[in-house]
């Protein structure tokens, strides 16, 4: 049980995808113009990650080593297309704002990375826990970046406060790609600083 918890929590801090492993940058930078987009993208990726981790782990003794990556891609792509079809039918606005980045979850390094590095060597439960942790860690990171960029860049937080405008003259630059890099860089720095301080105390 403790190992399961451990597999789950490592994704939230020690190996939090965006900030520690620095994987999955492309969607992270592109869609985090708002809290809502970040959350939607994170949850979509989490769903795919949990499902693909679980299934790949369940099939790990059946899939021959030589074609494993091809099998992983098929499994991952199938789940991604599921997400795409469901968002188009039930969350149309979200699918419009995420656009091409939903299909692109297929090539999100985190997902293939977890399949290759974790799911194929571990049991189903551990893989599910790993997927959930990593997915939520990714979501958390996207939500943080999205919140900062939306609040400072557009002056709103549409998901929670509707049309309320907090800043009348927002830093529009944060909504652009360079703003994404800046936000991410500062967050990485802050995380490293926190990590260092934590170590000194311990």
């Amino acid at each position: 049980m403790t190992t399961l918890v451990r597999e789950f929590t490592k994704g939230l801090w020690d190996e939090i995808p965006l900030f520690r492993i620095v994987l999955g940058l492309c969607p992270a930078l592109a869609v985090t113009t708002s809290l809502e987009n970040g959350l939607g993208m994170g949850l979509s990726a989490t769903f795919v990650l949990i499902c693909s981790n679980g299934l790949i782990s369940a099939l790990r003794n059946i899939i021959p080593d030589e074609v494993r990556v091809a099998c992983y891609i098929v499994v991952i792509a199938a789940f991604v297309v599921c997400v795409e079809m469901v968002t188009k039918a039930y969350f149309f606005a979200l699918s419009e704002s995420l656009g091409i980045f939903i299909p692109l979850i297929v090539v999100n390094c985190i997902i293939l990375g977890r399949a290759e590095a974790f799911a194929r060597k571990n049991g189903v439960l551990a893989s599910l826990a790993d997927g959930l942790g990593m997915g939520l860690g990714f979501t958390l990171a996207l939500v943080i970046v999205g919140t900062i960029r939306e609040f400072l860049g557009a002056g709103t937080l549409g998901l929670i406060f509707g049309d309320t405008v907090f800043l009348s003259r927002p830093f529009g630059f944060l909504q652009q790609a360079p703003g994404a890099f800046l936000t991410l860089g500062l967050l990485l720095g802050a995380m490293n600083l926190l990590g260092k301080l934590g170590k000194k105390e311990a």
Partner: protein
Amino acid sequence: MKNSIRMVVVLSLISLLSGLALGGLHGLTYERAQNNILKFKKIPAVADIYEVMAGKLPPAEREAIEEGLLAEKRFVDVGEKQPVLFFVIRKEGEPFAVALENYGAGFGGELGVMIGFEIESGNLLGVGITTMSETPGIGTKVRDESFLKQFHAMGKGTVFKVKKDGGGIDAISGATISSRAVAQGIELAEGFYTTHREAILAAIDVVPGGAQ
């Protein structure tokens, strides 16, 4: 040898099962997704064209118009694979224009254009953009009022090509391909409308007359 057979079998089975599952899900979600496209893409484009005729509407009124346009959905069967969808735009209750959609090849795939034709004159009433996956901030400018307003009441004799290609449409600088896609969509729709005008008008019980 045995090993390679296993490779083929496992990969094929996984692909087959994934394909079947996706096919099933597609069947379950397709209709809803199409409805979303109708409601959030096509209808607003028709409403844009309606506003060319009636002037800009306040949000509440526009909502009512969009609701009403949903009921003005018609189909005309001209022997293509599927009956072709179009919308009737009414002025004081009488059919004033019909709007139909066509597609051009944009930078990021198909670009959907909704074109309104005035029934009486055959001229364009206006143009709205439905679905597209153009580059944000560049190709998506074809949605801008400043680009679309050139089509208001554009004569049916216009060559529906961008000026670079010898036509009468002002392209957006930096977004020639997207502008061209819009022109292509209009050209195709114009061709369709001219060819099938009578069938379309018969479908809404208008006796074809006026300028051909």
